[in-house]
């Protein structure tokens, strides 16, 4: 009934080699071990087939296969076929995941003869194909081993799970004190796809249920969370001329950056005079207020008047006016990047906000940020002013509506309307926004409001 093809397992080159030396059995131990790992190729199911799509793997890595057992369903240009195993052994490594497409004759998985060889086969699969997900998955483990001194909570994306479980699911009233995670069907599907552990996700749906957008937000946040885990900054031991595969974090950042290209963004810049803000900062600095907190506060107050700039569009069909204004502020840490979030920055007073900020930065340095402390931002601030950068533009993080790049405030010669020339401190800000939901006039109005607040900052301390 099922179209069972017997052609899937072509002998790999190594096994051919083995056959050639089969006369001298056991002559070369290492060669023989190597030879027991066979490649599973994409079979040619019809004469016109050039590539096949993996519909589903019926076995998972590590599963034992007996001869004649169905391993994988392959979709060709004509039909779907079950492909069955020609050899006994263990499915060591899947090289093309479900939904993936591979040309006829290319390796799609490795088959190990004994259980001991699974690891070896895995290693082989990683070296032979740097696009496999295995590379990404394996990395965190290696990192953990390499850097035992890194606090566990931030060591790898998979580790904060344990801590966050209670946090994530306890929100749900019926989750029996965190024993159950309540997530919608699509959220579950997405979590599997994006490799997000639902235990780490804070639900924002009805009654605290985890919905798709929570998973998406968590997926965006994961790379950031992972960044502190990078054990050794590249600087000391960079070998020039080498090709270095992405770490998990770099891979995730890369994916997010590429994903950001699907959002049509545009930029609007504005020059803001900061004399009044600088004066205020000087005055209340002794009370522990930081410039970051002031900027976040000013931004939040401006966002109150322009809710559309605090909105986000996730599906391309609708957008969400976020109910709270959570300012994420990008912070560079150990060569990585993290965005601690100042929640409800519009409502919290500047002193509390400053304390909160200090706490977040300390936590970030100690790699102890909880997921909700870095993945709930609705608007992002990125400040490179401290490096003397006077202007730059930022890439919009997926899942948010806008990000503001803040340059250094520096004294400038300014001509005023009445024909005088004077000296003023000015900084340039540049907002990148999702034009599907935020239009030029929205940003212009927002920036005008922001400038007004910064230039007359009495509301910041209320």
């Amino acid at each position, binding site marked *: 009934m*099922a179209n069972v093809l017997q052609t899937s397992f072509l002998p790999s080159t190594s096994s051919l080699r083995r056959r050639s030396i089969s006369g001298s059995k056991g002559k070369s131990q290492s060669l023989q071990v190597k030879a027991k790992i066979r490649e599973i190729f994409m079979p040619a199911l019809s004469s016109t087939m050039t590539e096949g799509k993996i519909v589903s793997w019926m076995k998972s890595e590590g599963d034992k296969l007996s001869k004649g057992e169905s391993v994988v369903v392959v979709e060709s240009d*004509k039909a779907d076929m079950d492909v069955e195993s020609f050899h006994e052994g263990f499915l060591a490594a899947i090289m093309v995941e479900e939904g993936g497409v591979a040309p006829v004759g290319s390796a799609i998985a490795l088959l190990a003869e004994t259980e001991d060889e699974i690891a070896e086969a895995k290693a082989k699969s990683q070296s032979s194909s740097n696009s496999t997900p295995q590379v990404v998955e394996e990395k965190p483990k290696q990192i953990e081993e390499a850097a035992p001194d890194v606090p566990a909570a931030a060591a790898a994306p998979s580790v904060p799970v344990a801590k966050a479980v209670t946090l994530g699911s306890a929100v749900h009233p019926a989750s029996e004190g965190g024993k159950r995670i309540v997530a919608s069907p699509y959220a579950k599907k997405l979590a599997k796809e994006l490799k997000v552990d639902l235990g780490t996700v804070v639900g924002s749906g009805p009654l605290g249920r985890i919905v798709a957008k929570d998973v998406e937000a968590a997926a965006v946040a994961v790379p950031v969370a992972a960044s502190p885990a990078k054990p050794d900054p590249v600087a000391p031991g960079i070998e020039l001329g080498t090709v270095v595969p992405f770490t998990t974090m770099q891979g995730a950042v890369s994916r997010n950056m590429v994903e950001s290209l699907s959002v049509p963004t545009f930029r609007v810049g504005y020059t803001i005079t900061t004399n009044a803000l600088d004066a205020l900062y000087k005055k209340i600095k002794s009370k522990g207020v930081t410039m970051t907190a002031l900027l976040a506060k000013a931004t939040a107050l401006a966002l109150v008047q322009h809710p559309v700039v605090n909105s986000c569009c996730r599906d391309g069909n609708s957008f969400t006016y976020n109910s709270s204004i959570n300012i994420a502020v990008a912070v560079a840490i150990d060569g990585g990047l993290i965005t601690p979030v100042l929640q409800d920055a519009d409502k919290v007073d500047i002193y509390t906000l400053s304390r909160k900020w200090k706490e977040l930065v300390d936590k970030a340095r100690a790699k102890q940020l909880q997921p909700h402390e870095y993945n709930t931002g609705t608007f992002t601030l990125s400040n490179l002013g401290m490096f003397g950068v006077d202007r730059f533009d930022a890439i919009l993080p997926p899942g948010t509506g806008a990000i503001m790049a803040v340059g250094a405030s520096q004294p400038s010669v300014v001509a005023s309307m009445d024909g005088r020339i004077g000296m003023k401190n000015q900084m340039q800000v540049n907002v990148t926004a999702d034009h599907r939901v935020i239009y030029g006039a929205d940003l212009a109005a927002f920036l005008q409001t922001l400038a007004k607040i910064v230039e007359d900052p009495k509301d910041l301390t209320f």
Partner: protein
Amino acid sequence: MHSTLSFSRATTVPTTNYAFHSQSPINLRFCGLRREAFGISILTRSSSGRVRLSTRGRSKRISASTGNNGTPPKSFDYDLIIIGAGVGGHGAALHAVEKGLKTAIIEGDVVGGTCVNRGCVPSKALLAVSGRMRELQSEHHMKALGLQVSAAGYDRQGVAGHANNLASEIRSNLTNSMKALGVDILTGFGTIVGPQKVKYGKVGFTDNVVTAKDIIIATGSVPFVPKGIEVDGKTVITSDHALKLEFVPDWIAIVGSGYIGLEFSDVYTALGSEVTFIEALDQLMPGFDPEISKLAQRVLINPRKIDYHTGVFATKITPARDGKPVIIELTDAKTKEHKDTLEVDAALIATGRAPFTNGLGLENINVVTQRGFVPVDERMRVIDANGNLVPHLYCIGDANGKMMLAHAASAQGISVVEQVTGRDHVLNHLSVPAACFTHPEISMVGLTEPQAREKAVKEGFEISVAKTSFKANTKALAENEGEGLAKLIYRPDNGEILGVHIFGLHAADLIHEASNAIALGTRIQDIKFAVHAHPTLSEVLDELFKSAKVKAPASTSSPISEPVAA
């Protein structure tokens, strides 16, 4: 399929029961409209119509010159009384008039029954919307065609209105078609008071008693709700409520993954809901050919916002109240242990349909229902408690549970009318097609592969299976809808078609070539010479028949090979 159906009859709860009912509407609609057209043509061209009728009725009885409804017999008020004006009753009534019988139909609710008012018809309206939404939302699909569409949206009220309007339009079509032919529509609940005697009347009014030579019970069915489930009509609903589309929940659990459940999952996911299936059996979509359900799951379930629990019963469902969501207790179907608790925004109960036979007065004629179903023989003759046939009493449609499909009821009704007008007729249920109107559609006729294999072993013949893919069909590819499979189960020795299963674009319309072949006994070696227009989807079946390897030669007197004109 036949065995699936008898399974439905044997159990009151099966998902397939309800399911089987749901998929008939297009056929029904065609039927209703065609009949209506016939009726109108008689009215407008009165003389020719009369001539036509009398010719038809010649052998049986002289057609009345005053009207199209036949003359009453001397001792009875009517030749035929049908209790229930659903699709089955309607089909029987129209055929009875055509045969010259004086016919009355008793309806206690609205004409059209479940199918037209609460089933197939309004659900097709919703599915028409979901199909278009799905297409418009599929950026990938649109892009492949070179189309650009900005965000597709929908207005719930508008969608619900379309479903409601369609139901009333079809209902009035049905009513008019019967009125035009002169069928007496008697309002009230019908009860059998004795042999050939029925009383009817509205509650609070005096009953009228009428007599008829023959009586057909066609009272249909109602949604079956297992115990432990509290239906409030708002958050815990049956298909009756769901078709009104009063709200589109974010997350809806659908109990039962038969036809009804599948169709509603198609509607709800297209409108933006997420769906959780709860299925008592170990796999989704029981009742379909396993290969088809496997493929269907890959296309209709896995890529959509749907998850599922199989092998579990929803033993307790509490509607949303006091700020709490709908709570569903899941119990393992085998161990009977509590397995999980779900909290969702709404739950749709699609666990089957129960016959609506209470109050029919069956006790007056010594008939005992089996789990509510009226026992009948293969000619739809009602069997009494002692196993004897009740003379002049028939039961068709969901009420007998043989095959819970609107068009099957209609076919059974026609079969009964044939019998009472003197021609023996037994309906071949294996030739009755069934369809599920998901996107893409699923359709089938005859046996599934496991059923065919079982039969082959028992009766000692060989079977073969042929398959063709929509991926190889030009029209399907032009539509960019190459996903799909047609499967033929046949006897290689004599070319008999045992079953055909189709999953793909317009599968519901494509199945009729196969179902007609089975009904007429056409063999593969003959039908393979029939010509199909190119390029059309029907070539999927053409190729299917051609790819079958039949040992028997084509019959020499095949109607297809005979020239029509010299």
